[in-house]
């Protein structure tokens, strides 16, 4: 399918041509709906009306999709298997792209075809008005607007719908705290803020050892998880994407697991927000998407609402309005102090390869408490010193992250954090380490053995600490602080208490100069 096919099928409005799709009923003809459809914030919908018609329609469509057999391409189970499955992976299933510059475009395509399938199912619902049917678009969850938006909307936490039926939007397989109204950690070192990701000036990082991966992820080939062997998530995939997965899923919940995450209806709203952040990133000055043939030419397979095989490439999904017929209610870049972030905001990285200059000697166990480790840095090689005296880039890697299960907690990482906690700890903040996909990357028989790896560009932090004589190459300290869901002040939760967190092992923390 190319751009012409999409335009022919969907007309100027970007709406689907549902006339031949099963169960479509009466459809608005192409051209009747003004402009692209608008994806709205779920909390805006909730504020207008609890159980807004858009939300009710989503719940009803999920119910329809859940009744379809798993082999039906438009069923709930099949749509989840597209993301990840060990059963019968093929060109459509087990295809999600992670730790790669395909992360954002693939998930944009995934959401697009899911939305088309849901829209078709919405048309079957008798209790949804025609305006909602015509305008329905997947909501997004912007969890970074303060309380209560950092909590799961009530419509996803109610076990019954207003009509007294089992609520398709509720799943028990979530963090208990989240289901009881607990808040995603926001504020300083919280996981909801996209500010760190949005500060990244480049879309993709080079395929080089130890270097950070840019906003969208490193340059790779087809990349389900770790086929390249060196991949690390891009900044948007790190935080908020991975962190939110773990926080909402908790230990063992749907959202915490690679193969189960799409079974939670909030997965789609979360990824809708991540997709929105790509549009926000593009609104900032100087941001461009890749144009390399390797990015544009990789073909991905999906099924449309009729169950027909369709293909897409990344270069055909860069403009949500022109290419896909939708937009977001709000893509205004947030105002933030980018000086505070560790990343270097400008200039291309140097042409020389990165070089490991130090690492911890022993693995680090993350068991739910703050922990720190130290390392000594070696002097760079003579070849490195032949260039500029100071490294142009400094990267911190957290490598070989393994564990049996996502513990549902993230860790904020700091460099040379002072013992006096009244000090300006934010100047030492690097980013978050989260554990989405850890079960796929651990153990000798796992699909992608070797553990997770996170790479952070700490060039600015390095220069800041050096200027204050707080960067000691003989003793560099890296600290990990757990960042958890804010427990609700609720008697029901107090009786249950927090969930135990399975341990995670970090193979080493390393520093690369470039």
């Amino acid at each position, binding site marked *: 399918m190319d751009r012409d096919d999409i335009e022919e099928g969907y007309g100027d409005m970007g709406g689907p041509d549902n006339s031949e799709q099963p169960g479509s009923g009466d459809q608005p003809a192409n051209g009747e709906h003004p402009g692209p459809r608008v994806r709205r914030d779920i909390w805006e919908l909730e504020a207008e009306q609890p159980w807004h018609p858009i939300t009710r329609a989503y719940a009803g469509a999920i119910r329809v999709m859940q009744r379809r057999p798993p082999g039906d391409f438009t069923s709930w189970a099949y749509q989840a298997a597209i993301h990840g499955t060990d059963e019968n992976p093929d060109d459509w299933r087990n295809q999600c792209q992670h730790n790669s510059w395909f992360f954002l475009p693939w998930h944009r395509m995934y959401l697009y075809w899911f939305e088309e399938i849901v829209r078709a199912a919405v048309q079957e619902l008798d209790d949804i008005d025609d305006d909602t049917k015509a305008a329905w678009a997947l909501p997004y969850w912007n969890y970074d607007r303060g309380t209560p938006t950092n909590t799961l909307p009530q419509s996803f936490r109610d076990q019954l719908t207003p009509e007294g039926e089992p609520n398709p939007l509720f799943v028990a397989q979530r963090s208990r705290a989240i289901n009881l109204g607990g808040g995603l950690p926001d504020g300083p070192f919280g996981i909801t803020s996209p500010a760190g990701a949005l500060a990244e000036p480049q879309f993709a990082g080079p395929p080089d050892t130890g270097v950070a991966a840019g906003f969208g992820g490193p340059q790779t080939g087809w990349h389900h998880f770790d086929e390249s062997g060196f991949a690390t998530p891009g900044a948007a995939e790190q935080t908020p994407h991975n962190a939110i997965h773990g926080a909402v899923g908790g230990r063992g919940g749907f959202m915490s697991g690679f193969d189960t995450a799409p079974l939670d209806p909030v997965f789609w709203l979360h990824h809708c927000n991540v997709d929105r952040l790509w549009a926000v990133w593009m609104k900032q000055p100087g941001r461009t998407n890749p144009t390399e043939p390797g990015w544009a030419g990789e073909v991905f397979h999906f099924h449309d609402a009729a169950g027909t095989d369709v293909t897409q490439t990344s270069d055909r999904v860069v403009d949500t309005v022109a290419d896909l017929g939708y937009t977001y209610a709000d893509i205004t870049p947030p105002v933030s102090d980018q000086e505070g972030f560790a990343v270097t905001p400008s200039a291309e990285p140097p042409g020389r390869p990165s070089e490991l200059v130090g690492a911890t000697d022993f693995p680090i166990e993350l068991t739910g408490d703050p922990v720190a480790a130290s390392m000594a840095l*070696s002097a760079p090689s003579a070849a490195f010193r032949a260039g500029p005296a100071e490294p142009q880039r400094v990267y911190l890697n957290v490598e070989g992250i393994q564990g049996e299960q996502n513990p549902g907690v993230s860790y904020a990482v700091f460099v040379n954090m002072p013992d006096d906690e009244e000090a300006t700890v934010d100047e030492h903040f690097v980013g978050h380490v989260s554990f989405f996909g850890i079960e796929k990357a651990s153990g000798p028989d796992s699909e992608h053995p070797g553990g997770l790896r996170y790479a952070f560009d700490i060039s600015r932090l390095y220069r800041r600490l050096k200027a204050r004589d707080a960067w000691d190459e003989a003793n560099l300290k890296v600290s990990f602080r757990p960042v958890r869901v804010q427990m609700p002040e609720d008697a029901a939760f107090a009786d249950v208490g927090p969930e135990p967190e399975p341990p995670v092992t970090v193979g080493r923390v390393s520093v690369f100069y470039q």
Partner: protein
Amino acid sequence: MTVAGHAGRSISGTAWLQRRPEWPLAVVASGCWAVLLSRQPAHAGHIRWLQLQGDWLLMLPAMMLLPALPMARRVARNSLRRRRHRAVMLFGGVSLVVWAGFGVAAVTLVHLLDLRSPLVLAGALAAAAAWELTPAKRRFLRACHRMPALPPHGRKADRACADLGLRYGYSCFGACWALMLPMAVAGHSPGLMVLLTGIAAAEEITVKGHRIAPVAAVVLLVASAMVLVAG
């Protein structure tokens, strides 16, 4: 520029080598290829056991180091610069030890039982084709890509590189033992070497290496049939 870094820039030779610290293994492999290709192929008839072992010890690095180069590069780039060559040689050398053991056993067996015949060679190629399609092959291939975090220096670092070489060698052996069985039967056969090395390298290096297996199985079966017909 949308990819941070190096697209469109010319890179000096030094920088090119810096990005490929696995080059010592490539040199060893290339040297072995050069020696093997400059010699006459083995012919049917009585060949001394020692010569067979010598051929095997040249074939091993020639054939098995090439697929190992991407992993060797990762070992080197994740080591302190002053240790890179040491790390690479430890990793590569130890990984070949596993194969050397297999070679002694396989070549000795072939020699003692006088199994160097077209029929046995065709059977070995067919067995290699069958192994390509097993779930075990895929598991071993996956394990070949496992890269643990390496300690930065000292004996711990040496042990870790050697341990990785041993585990990689074991995984590689598990994935490719059936591909090397025909070599144990055929001895020094450049054409077969090129074919089998190509299959092993493609499976190790490409992103969806396991998808090459059905194609490789067909190629090996065709080769088996050709050996039978020619024999």
